[in-house]
Structure formats: C-alpha cells, structure tokens
C-alpha cells in the first residue's frame, strides 16, 4: 500500500479534459445551446456589471435564422456600411488564402489564417474610432485590413524582404503599425493584455478621448497576464475592451484546457466586477453591436468590458500544424453558428442590398487586387532569396544607440560574411 492511502475512503480521481470528438469521429454540436435572438436585451451602456451577469452566460445575436437583423442589439447599420464590412471580411479571407499558399510555395516560413473568425477583427475595428489603439494577438490581421493598411506592406513583412518595415526581424504576421493604431505583436501570449490596460490608463490620466481594445484567444486566457490585466482594469476603471476570441482550439488543445468545461470565458469578468458579454462571433452585426456597446461605455468613463466571441477556428492554428491529426473532420462545416462571411452575405441579399452575382464579382475584384499587391511585394524579395535589409541592421534598435559590444559583434558578423562570400561581397 502506498503511504497515506486510506482503504475506507474512495480514491481521488484526476480529471484531464478531453474534447468530445477526435479524428474519425462524427462531430455533433447539438448540445451547444443557442439562445433566441435578443433573449437578453441590450442594457444601458452604463449598467452595473452586477446587474448584467446573464449576458456573460448568454449569447448576443442579431442575425436570426431568417438572415434578418432584429432585436435590441441590432446596430441598425445602413447598407453601405454593411457592404463595406462584407468587403473587408472577404478581402481578409482572400488575402489569407493567398498568403497561406505563398507559404506552401516556399516563399516564407510561416502563416496564420483567420478563416471563420473574420468578424472578430473586422466588425470590431469598424465599431472603434480610427485612432483607438488596438493590441492584437496573432490572428487579427483584419484590423489592419479594415484600417486600409497597405496590403503590400503586410506582404513585405510576411516575406521579411527589403521592403519589410520591421526589417525582417519578426516572424511573419507579427506586424507593428503605430500610425494605424496597431500595436507590435508579440509571440508570447497575452502579454498585450496588461499593456493595453497601461495604454488605456495613460489615455485616461491625460484626459485623452481614445480608448484601447485588446484581443486574445480562449487558450491564452490561462496566462497570468490575463488576470493581472483584468485586475488592473477593474482597479483603475480603465477605458479598455478585453476580447476573447473563443475559437475552441489552442493549437491542438481544446478550450477545456482553459476551463471552458466549467464556465464561459465572458464569465471571467464577473469575479473582477467588470461587464462581461458573450457574443455569437460569427454574427458580424452582433460582434459590431457588442464592441459598440463596450466602446461607448469605455469612452464615457463607464470602465472596461470583457467580450467573448463564440466562434470556431476554421483551419489549422498555423501553417505548422495539421488539424486532421487532433480533431474531427468537418467540424467547421457542422458548426451550428455558420460562417461569418456567408451569414453577412445572406443578410445583405435578404434585405435586397446584395446579390450572388455581385458577390462573385467582388471576390474576383479582391483576388485581382491581392494578386497585384503580391506581385508588387515580391519585387522586394521573398524569404531566403537574398533581398533583405542590410546585414548590419541586425544590430540596430537593440538600443537607441549601439553600445561597444554590439559594434564589436557587428564587425565580427561582417567579417564572417566576407569569409563566406569573398571580398566582393561588400560591393554587392
């Protein structure tokens, strides 16, 4: 007998979560509860968090099964705005496809698509002011696309080429664009959470009018930074919007490893005394409405909000994993909340503001635009083909001024290149 085990007591049992479906299984999402549209109506933007707990367990929806926008959360967007939203989401999808293929063609090392989650970066950004500060995780390229950041610059970064504004230093897709209110992306997860709070606190302390918005995934809510950030935001009533894109998967680990078997991610807000909303992340209008509610609240000193977008990661985590190795096939096709692009398109068609023909024409137009941008970017080089920033830039920007030890190491590196490529290397 192992020391300490008592025969008269039932043995303890360690629970290790397991997703319902694995490769070979037929996915069945019939147990996911989808409340009626407007099951909980839109509260006042200054509602006390204590009075809106139900919203953290419900599901904010605007688009009903008949593709019409209804209920108190309906943001009442006009057809032009809806078409603009669809256009951005489609552009993001086309861009993602093209860059994923570029990685497969060996033009770069890595790519991450946002397939199935387009609404959570596009509709959200449209509900913010253009100078509000976004602290994205790695799957919110839709922010840049929505804010009209040049596609060529995104591609230059993905190729780490001579046109890359980040000088080839960052893994593809880890953009930085201060002028577009887009914070430098870290590969370390959820570090942007307390940073977004700090930015918001600074804005509030300077009597500014700008707010910050921050994104992370379901899996990375487990990081300590998430909880530090929510504590600070609650303490200082910071004008920040926390967003959890619950796409069900953190690489191969399902959301149960972040605690989803016990509660919702939106309900994390309750313990901190901040507002929590759980939203149909594939309903672009619901996503817009939730962000608009939270942004109005933050901008009028109502404090922070945590929004969970309930969605599904349509493809792999990145180009480096095969979802067929860990989850059931067809999950996305069976996802009960559909596809965000299709749902917005169907809504526009239903209200008579769009057609299948227009949709196909738009896809062609955007594909041509992306292809032309790609051609332009590739003139600056692709990864590993020599067209990169000058070698010495490796040592720049570690500090504002280069200290002696980096100068020495830079000289060493240049000598190594001369040894490797011969004396004429410098002239090149």
């Amino acid at each position, binding site marked *: 007998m192992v020391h300490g085990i008592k025969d008269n007591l039932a043995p303890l049992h360690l629970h290790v979560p397991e997703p319902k479906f694995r490769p070979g299984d037929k996915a069945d999402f019939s147990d996911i509860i989808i409340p009626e549209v407007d099951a909980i109506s839109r509260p006042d933007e200054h509602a006390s968090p204590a009075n809106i707990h139900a919203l953290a367990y419900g599901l904010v929806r605007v688009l009903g099964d008949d593709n019409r926008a209804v209920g108190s959360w309906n943001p009442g967007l006009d057809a032009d705005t809806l078409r603009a939203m669809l256009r951005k989401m489609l552009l993001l999808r086309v861009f993602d496809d093209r860059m994923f293929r570029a990685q497969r063609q060996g033009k770069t090392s890595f790519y991450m698509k946002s397939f199935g989650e387009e609404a959570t970066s596009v509709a959200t950004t449209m509900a913010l002011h253009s100078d509000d500060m976004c602290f994205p995780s790695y799957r919110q390229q839709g922010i840049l696309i929505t804010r009209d950041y040049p596609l060529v610059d995104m591609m230059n970064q993905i190729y780490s080429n001579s046109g890359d*504004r980040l000088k080839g230093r960052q893994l593809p897709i880890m953009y930085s664009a201060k002028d577009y209110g887009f914070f430098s992306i870290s590969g*370390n997860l959820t570090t942007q959470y*307390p940073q977004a709070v*700090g930015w918001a606190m*600074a804005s509030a302390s*300077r009597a500014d009018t700008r707010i910050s918005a921050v994104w992370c995934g379901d899996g990375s809510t487990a990081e300590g930074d998430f909880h530090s950030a929510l504590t600070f935001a609650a*303490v200082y009533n910071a004008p920040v919007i926390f967003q959890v894109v619950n796409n069900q998967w953190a690489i191969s680990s399902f959301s149960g490893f972040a605690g989803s078997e016990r509660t919702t991610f939106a309900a994390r807000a309750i313990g901190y005394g901040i507002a929590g909303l759980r939203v149909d992340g594939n309903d672009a209008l619901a996503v817009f409405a939730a962000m608009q509610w939270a942004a109005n609240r933050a901008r009028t000193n109502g404090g922070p909000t945590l929004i969970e977008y309930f969605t599904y990661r349509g493809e792999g985590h990145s180009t480096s994993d095969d979802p067929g190795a860990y989850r059931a096939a067809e999950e996305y096709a069976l996802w009960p909340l559909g596809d965000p692009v299709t749902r917005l398109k169907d809504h526009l068609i239903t209200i008579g503001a769009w057609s299948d023909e227009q949709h196909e024409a738009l896809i062609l137009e955007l594909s041509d635009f992306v292809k032309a941008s790609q051609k332009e970017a590739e003139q600056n080089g692709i990864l590993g083909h020599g067209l990169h920033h000058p070698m010495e830039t490796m040592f720049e*920007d570690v500090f504002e001024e280069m*200290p002696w030890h980096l100068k020495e190491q830079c000289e060493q590196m240049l000598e190594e290149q001369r040894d490797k490529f011969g004396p004429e290397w410098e002239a090149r």
Partner: protein
Amino acid sequence: MSEPATKSMNMIEAINSALDVMLAKDPEVVIMGEDVGYFGGVFRATAGLQKKHGKSRVFDTPISECGIIGVGVGMAAYGLRPVPEIQFADYIYPGLDQLVSEAARMRYRSANDFICPMTVRSPFGGGIFGGQTHSQSPESLFTHVCGIKTVIPATPYDAKGLLIAAIEDNDPVVFFEPKRIYNGPFSGYYDRPVEPWSKHDGSAVPEGYYRIDLGKAAVVREGQAVTVLTYGTMVHVVRAVVAEHGIDAEIIDLRTLLPLDIETVEASVKKTGRCMVVHEATRTSGFGAELAAQVQERCFYHLEAPIERVTGFDTPYPHSLEWAYFPGPVRLARAFDKIMKD
C-alpha cells in the same frame, strides 16, 4: 558661477530627490508600485511625492509585478515615461516576461515603431536579515537579456545622477538599489556600529537636476597592485578591507553593468596586472563570470595571476547564516592573499 546647492542625503533621500526632480521636469514621468503612493514606499523612496505631484503621477498598484511592468510597457507605448517600483528585487520574477520579452524587445521588434523608456527601480541585495525572498541579487539575469540596461549605484550622489539619466534614457533600464546601504555605507563588519552617509563624500548631493551618464564606471580608489571590479554594497566592503589590510588596490565601481565601461576596466587591469571581481550575487553564471571572461579576452598577456572571483555562495540567501553567506572581510582578505601571492 556659484556651486549648486548641495545637501547631505542618504541614498533613499537621493533617490526621492531624483524622482521629485524628474516628476517636476517631465510631465510624462509617472511612478507606480506597491505602497508607493500615499504611504511613500516601504523604504520611503517615494515619500511625499504623491502629495506633491498628484495621484495621476504617483500611485499605488495591485500586488502584481506582471501587471505593474506590463502596464508600464503600455504606458510607455502611449508616450509616458513610467518609473515602476518593484518592492524587492526578489519579487520581480512574475514580471520577467514583460521585461525580457516585451520591454527589452519593443524597439527592435517594431523597428523603432514603439519604444519603452521605462525605468524599473528595485531594492536588491542582502545583509538586512531578509531571508531568501528579500535578499537576492538577480542582476545577471538582466545583463544576459539584450535590450535592457542594468544600473547599480553605490553612493547617494551616484544614485540620484544615475537614476535621472536612467529615467531620461529612451531604453528600458533596470535600476537596482543596494538596500543594505540605503542608510549608510557598509564596511562588511555587521557587528560594528553603522556609519551614517553624512560622513561619506558621496552624500553631498545637489538639490536640483544633474545626471551621471550610463555606461561610465568610477575609479573610487586608485592603486597599482590589483584591480577590483565591483558594484553596489560591495564597493564599500572592498574599500574597508583594502584600507584595513593596506592593499594598494584600484577599486572600480562599475555603476552600469550593461553597457559596461570596458575601457576603464581594461586600462586598469593592464596597469595593475591583477584582477578580482566581487559581487554579492551567487557565483555560477554571475556577472563576475562575464567580467572575468572580458578581462581575460582583453588583458590575458598582462595578467600575473588568475582572476579571482569573490561572490555569494550558490545557495539561496540563508536567514540565520546570512553572514556566513555574505562575501565579507574574511572571504575578501583570503582572496587578496591568494591573488597577491602569485
């Protein structure tokens, strides 16, 4: 031109004065940390600053070093110049990712799009019966990280001038304050009466603004026989031992560990032909290892004896046996005997 008004200050008062000067000079400077606001800090380094400069400039924070440093990175991205306090260096680890992966890399990874002009102040080192969670010297964790400057003062005068320079620096700085010498220099003889700062030259501190550039060491005693490279509390312990034993040592207070003032180090070792490195931190992979490597790379043919390392032991900082751990007069005297024999 008249000399600027000076005042005798201990190190806490000098740090307080530096913060006060910078809060007044630069509206972007903000101070935050556990207990730093109304109360003025557990070591009193921020006493009176909230009352004078307001709650939006000097404020208390939740007990979350990850949050404090992460929020600081975000404030710096906005355009502020945060000066967070981590109450003890031993508590800095929850904030390490924010320092190492975020603050230190911000300029590089964003190609100058975002920068992080943040100075993290933190009392460090032992000799105060703090036990293993209030005595650590983690400086070499930070010198190992590219993108952070590491600064450690040894006198009130240097503390103020270096802290002002650190706050004005546009890169992240970790500013470790040797808390054993907050109130007076320390000879290493814990059983002798504490000497106040007022009897030390380094306590005459100008009341206004001045700066000591980062990356410049100070030769605190000129000598011919052996070069001692050290910083913080150990500067004073080495001085006392050298005086007691009549050793003609050249004592260099590095003041900034990174970037290191290699010229001063190299010139001194080439002159004396002997080199001892002294720190309170644990020995293995301590900053002394880097110093020894730099010295042998540059001064090998000038060395007349192996480089000596005098450090704390590779154990957690013990509570009751603190003085057996501390690299005090006996350990130093034995090392001097050894290095001068060869």
